[in-house]
């Protein structure tokens, strides 16, 4: 029988032996198992965190690009509208100019035609006047040369009708 002064046979030597035993176990487990496993878990966590960060970065970049492109699309719409308006204006101006030129040309042509018609009318009148004068002169000459006034008068009328028929 081994009895010490302490109750329940508490033995400091054995407590210290237990302590030494546990200290060896603690350091052994820490070096052989705990630290390597924790390190690996940390490494894996960092690996997935890096992947996650990369994915988040790419997502942010894609969102920025989307925003940029949508802005550019909005600008493009405005640009297209401005260009269309400008082209429309230019087209209207060109149409008005060509209309004006056509009108001027038409006016000029009408004026020229009018002048030509006037000149022709004058020429016709002049020629008709001369023909009438010639006819009257011829008739007067015949009357003067013929005795029979009635015959002369009939011949005059016949000539006048003929000339009217021929135009």
């Amino acid at each position, binding site marked *: *029988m*081994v*009895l010490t002064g302490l109750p*329940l*046979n*508490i*033995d400091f*030597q*054995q*407590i210290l*032996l*237990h*302590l030494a*035993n*546990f200290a*060896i*176990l*603690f350091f*052994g*487990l*820490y070096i*052989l*198992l*705990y*630290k*390597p*496993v*924790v390190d*690996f*878990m940390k490494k*894996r966590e960092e*690996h*997935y965190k890096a992947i996650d960060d990369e994915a988040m970065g790419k997502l942010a970049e894609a969102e920025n690009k989307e925003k940029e492109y949508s802005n550019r699309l909005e600008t493009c719409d405005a640009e297209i509208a401005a260009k269309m308006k400008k082209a429309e204006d230019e087209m209207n101006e060109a149409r008005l100019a060509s209309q004006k030129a056509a009108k001027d040309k038409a006016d000029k042509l009408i004026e020229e035609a009018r002048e030509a018609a006037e000149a022709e009318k004058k020429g016709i009148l002049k020629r008709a006047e001369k023909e009438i004068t010639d006819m009257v002169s011829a008739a007067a000459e015949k009357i003067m040369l013929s005795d029979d006034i009635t015959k002369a008068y009939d011949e005059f009328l016949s000539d006048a009708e003929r000339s009217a028929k021929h135009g």
Partner: protein
Amino acid sequence: MLVLDKKKRMTAIIVLIIAEAVISIGVFVTNGMVEKHETIKEVMKDAVLHEDNRISLFGLAEVNPSLISGFVVTALLLLFAAIMRIFVIPKFSYVPGKMQILLEEWVGFFKKLAETNSHHRNKFLGAYIFAAGSYIFFGTMFELIGLEAITTEGHPISLPAPLADINGAICMGCLSYLVILSGGIAENKLRGVALTLKEFSLPISMSFRLFGALLSGMLVTELIYFYMGLSIVLPVIVGVLFTLIHALVQAYVLTMLVSMFYGEVTEPPKKKEKKKKPHDQDPENTPEDTSDDSDVAEESSEQAA
């Protein structure tokens, strides 16, 4: 799930009954052959006091069998850890296998427990409760193996759990208290010491909780194994399930207590917000604010008193 047809089931049941009968007969027949060198009273008294059955430690000293159990458990755990370190851990991959999951869960459980209960300082605590929890769990489960040793008197003895010895339990309880104290000193200096010393009963309560829980498990097991009549079916429940349950419970309780107290003593002091003086307050303050001020004044007067 394995589904047996009726015929096979019946055959299995008959085989089991015959086997059980043969074992029972064997137990009864061989009962008289085993010479019991001590009574149940002596067995149980020795389990508590360790007066008689002592083992020689390499001829240097006579020690309790639990100390030898402690050495064996430590050796087995370190051997297992070394095998894992050499053959399993270098093959760890980001997609874990079964062994890797087991090791990560084992380590991760204690690490998470430390981080949850001690937010400010938990690196050393995680390693400590990992070692302590593993030692308690595997040490308690060790008694199931029934490894035999020879006492100084020449009798064979089944090695008990390392912490079923009061010396082992005191070692674990006091060491845990010292770990808590060291955490308090490292984080809060003198305040940490004061916070730890406030819980002066902690080492005794932790030591005797461990000792009592593991000793009671061992006493019940000893009692049942001592009487042949009880040792046919009961050991399946008492020997295995009870040991497994109190191994888990005691490992969890000690690690949880250590991490909680460690977290408490390593918590940095909260900075008190400076209370506004009445003349510093905005003129737009409502009359309710003044009532708050009166409460503050009351509190300060109470503190002064």
